[in-house]
């Protein structure tokens, strides 16, 4: 009855795409969860953003092999996401806060390692490494029922990391974690990325996604509304020019020059030393502005975008999607 034991295939994280969705649709009876998704996730940190009901959890469960697509194909490391071989490469940290409360954190992580097909000694060793990685070594012998929300998040992460997956999928990992804990978890994700792995983080805490994710996926109504780096997505939003605040001792002269540029849609003077601009094609604008201030020796003391954050982009995309 038992399948032959197999050597673990090498991590494919460095070989480009870790996970792919091709024309994936998922229905729950008459309700559509995700609709005709095409997506490739590679190494690095990818943020998954969207309002409730957007299809984020369905997408995550499809990738984790917990759901079968109604149409299309989900592959992880080239294998069907629902297969055992694909699950070797996925570490899933759900938002569900359910454990066997009588278990200790250490026992829980070890059990999850055993479920992954590790021998007793391997499971023990890997559990200790994963616990150390999430900073829970000293507290892992306590029963889960006595853990705080932040400690539970860490234990959930440890169980996801225990088999050294190529891709870590985390659903709302920063919920209920204090600021220090959040910083540590974000460092953990970055460390995972630095080892050439992929991290998919679903979160509602948008300003932290700014700092964390290199690439974001905006979802709404079961579809991917936009994906790419925040800057790329921001540049695609033609109807929402980028707002830039600029501070200079020569504000009036500079504003008079900039208003003639075709990428500058409008300028508003705030005071003698500060004005704000509405800019199309931000990349081209910033390149030209840099060259210009250097060539003209103009003193610029501050330059910042005011609506290029994930939150602002999210709002623009959602309002566009609502009108569509």
């Amino acid at each position, binding site marked *: 009855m038992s399948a032959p034991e197999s050597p673990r295939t090498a991590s494919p994280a460095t070989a480009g795409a870790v996970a792919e969705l091709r024309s994936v649709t998922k229905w729950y009876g008459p309700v559509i969860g995700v609709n005709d998704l095409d997506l490739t996730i590679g190494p690095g940190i990818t943020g998954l953003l969207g309002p409730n009901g957007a299809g984020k959890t369905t997408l995550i469960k499809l990738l984790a092999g917990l759901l079968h697509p109604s149409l299309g194909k989900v592959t992880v490391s080239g294998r069907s996401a629902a297969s055992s071989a694909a699950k070797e490469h996925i570490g899933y940290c759900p938002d569900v806060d359910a454990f*066997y409360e*009588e278990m200790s954190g250490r026992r829980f992580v070890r059990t999850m390692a055993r479920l992954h097909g590790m021998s007793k000694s391997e499971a023990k060793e890997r559990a200790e490494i994963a616990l150390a990685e999430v*900073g829970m070594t000293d507290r892992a012998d306590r029963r889960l029922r006595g853990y705080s929300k932040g400690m539970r998040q860490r234990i959930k992460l440890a169980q996801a990391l225990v088999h*050294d997956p190529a891709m870590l999928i985390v659903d709302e990992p920063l919920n209920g974690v204090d600021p220090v804990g959040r910083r540590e978890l974000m460092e953990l994700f970055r460390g995972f990325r630095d080892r050439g792995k992929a991290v998919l983080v679903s979160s509602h805490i948008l300003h932290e996604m700014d700092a964390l994710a290199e690439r974001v996926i905006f979802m709404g109504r079961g579809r991917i509304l936009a994906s790419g780096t925040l800057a790329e997505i921001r540049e695609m939003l033609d109807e929402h020019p980028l707002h830039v605040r600029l501070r200079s001792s020569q504000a009036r002269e500079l504003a008079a020059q900039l208003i003639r540029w075709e990428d500058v849609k409008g300028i508003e003077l705030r005071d003698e030393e500060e004005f704000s601009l509405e800019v199309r094609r931000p990349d081209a604008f910033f390149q030209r502005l840099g060259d210009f201030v250097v060539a003209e020796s103009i003193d610029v003391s501050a330059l910042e975008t005011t609506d290029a954050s994930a939150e602002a982009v999210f709002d623009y995309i959602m309002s566009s999607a609502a009108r569509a």
Partner: protein
Amino acid sequence: MPAELAGYREWSGKTRSPWRASWSIVRTGVLMILRRWVFWLLIGLGLLNFLLNFALIYLKATLTIQNEAVGQFLDAYKVTGTGEAYADFMEGQATITALLLAFAGANLVGSDYRQGGMIYYLSRRIERRHYIVGKLMSVGAVVTMIATLPTIALFIEYGVLSSSLDYFFENGRILVGILGYGLVLAVVQSLLLFAIASWVHRAVPLVMCWLGVFVLLRLLADTARAISDDRRWLLLGIWENMDRVGSWCFGAGNPDKTPSVGLCLTVLVGLCIICLIVIVRRVRAIEVVT
């Protein structure tokens, strides 16, 4: 803590068959029961029954030599070393097991649905069939631990304390009976518990449903039989069906009694198939409910 300080190194070990991972589910399930003192009340009851029988067999073997009247007195407690005696003991232990499972079912199976914990299992390197088999085996392990293993221990004790080891050779059928009855109890109770707990997740409703299946169906069977004067109505009594099939494994019971052992077995097999269908559907349905 940074990965480097944690002594991180990539894992390149071998993963074993997912079927072996099912044993983790069994171990987790059994330990979950053993960790709760409330379940130890029922386990202790089973242990008490076992120790009583163990002591009676010992007393019979040692005191009968000195005084035959003691042996006749102990025979009243059915310490006879026959298949019927072991079947009676197993039925008693099975009752305790059924009570234990009624209370433990919510933890063993129901909590996976109620709290969404099943996704921890299914996101690992196992598939739904491994999860189902693991859970069924964990219930089966509890039944075996309380009903079958103690009976085997009594059988061995009786044989060892007999005047010769011929007891083992002459009563091979008893060992088959113990294993057969144990298998019937483990298979039927594990499938039935999993099927019920996958629908009724909380402890109190689960206890009511579980006991209802055994007690109310029996009452219904007796009533229907009394009204129609047809003994086949007794087939509704699942507990009695298990007992008849179990006793048949020992070679005990009246073969001419209606309903026949074959019919009882057919009902149990049918019940198991229905339970299995329910379980598979419910485990698949986890896609929608979480």
